[in-house]
């Protein structure tokens, strides 16, 4: 019974998709075919590509869109990750993972030595990714994820180590605060939230893009600490 209803529902949704795509041009490709891109205000993507480099001096247009034109979304997005980390902690509060770290089998020497050797280098790669977020693919979220993978490695490889949850929480809070404050400075200086108030510098240089790299650093730290916190909460006792 449930299966039939579900299949019927799927059929309706599928018919909707098919109807939507049939006929008239769709997406950026469709817009190009129908030559609607000529007008600047039809497709904002076009406009960002053509003017974004001059406006923010930020070589990666996606970063420019993520942190400047649509930076407010990113603030919400960071908040959502923050909520997920906190919510996870709230839900699992007071829970102890099956075996305590002492009883767990000691990891092999190969693993623990490798973890120790690699951990700083993983951190470095993560930091590299978010510092260069405005120049190359990647950015705060990706770099943060790499950093968290370093902590995951520690959790897996050196089981005796416990992450310092107070420090993680502090990093999380302070970087979130830094993002909001950077945005608010824009409001105070130029009357517009998230305004790129710093000199934007020369394109392709590391110091370019105004506040964009600074925000990405804050995001990188925040995402890294949040994901690490999630890993920490899932792997051990939650307090």
């Amino acid at each position, binding site marked *: 019974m449930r299966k039939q209803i579900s299949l019927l529902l799927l059929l309706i949704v599928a018919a909707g998709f098919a109807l939507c795509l049939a006929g008239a041009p769709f997406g950026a490709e469709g817009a190009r075919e129908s030559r609607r891109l000529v007008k600047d205000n039809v497709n904002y993507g076009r406009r960002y590509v053509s003017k974004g480099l001059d406006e923010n001096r930020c070589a990666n247009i996606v970063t420019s869109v993520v942190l400047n034109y649509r930076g407010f979304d990113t603030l919400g997005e960071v908040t959502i990750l923050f909520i997920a980390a906190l919510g996870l902690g709230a839900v699992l509060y007071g829970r102890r993972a099956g075996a305590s770290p002492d009883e767990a089998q000691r990891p092999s020497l*190969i693993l623990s030595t*490798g973890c*120790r050797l690699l*951990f700083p280098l993983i951190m470095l790669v993560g930091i590299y990714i978010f510092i260069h977020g405005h120049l190359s693919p990647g950015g705060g979220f990706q770099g943060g994820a790499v950093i968290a993978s370093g902590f995951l490695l520690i959790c897996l490889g050196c089981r005796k180590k416990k992450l310092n949850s107070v420090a993680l929480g502090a990093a999380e809070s302070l970087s979130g605060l830094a993002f909001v404050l950077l945005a608010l400075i824009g409001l105070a200086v130029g009357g517009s939230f998230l305004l790129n108030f710093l000199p934007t510098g020369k394109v392709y240089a590391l110091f370019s893009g105004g506040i964009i790299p600074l925000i990405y650093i804050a995001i990188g730290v925040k995402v890294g600490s949040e994901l690490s916190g999630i890993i920490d909460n899932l792997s051990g006792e939650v307090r």
Partner: protein
Amino acid sequence: MAEASYPLGDRLRSFLYMLGISFLVWLALTASLQAQELLVGAGVCLALSLALNTGYIRLGLPPLSAKRIVFFAVYLVVLLWEIIKANFDVAYRVVHPAMPINPGIVVIRTELKSDIAKMVLANSITLTPGTFTLDIIGDKLLIHWINVKAESVEDATRLIGERFERHLRVIFQ
């Protein structure tokens, strides 16, 4: 973690190692010699090494010397050569219709003391096709061997470990 219990000299060496390695990695990542990149890289590496400098102490990294660097370079070549040889060997066993393999687990002994040296040895053995390090217990390595030629510890050590270990002894001790 009992950070204060480490002697200052160890911490300093660990710090310098971390700084050097991470800066090399940074240079490789950025592939640029612009002043801004170098400056930021130096800052990041310095901060990382200051924050995490105890992490490398237990690895047992030896003091750096020209001889060790040269031997390390030589070692890389040796390792590469062994890998190529072993590749052909395993490929031969796979392609051969009779599949002449004799898999089994053997134990070898090592004279290396420091964690990092043991790890490099274990990983070198793993990287060479046909042998795979399962675990290190004390000074013994548990190895899965695709074609067990010798079952005694001494013979196995000679056949598997010695070709790497004689270089590693120079590098790490």
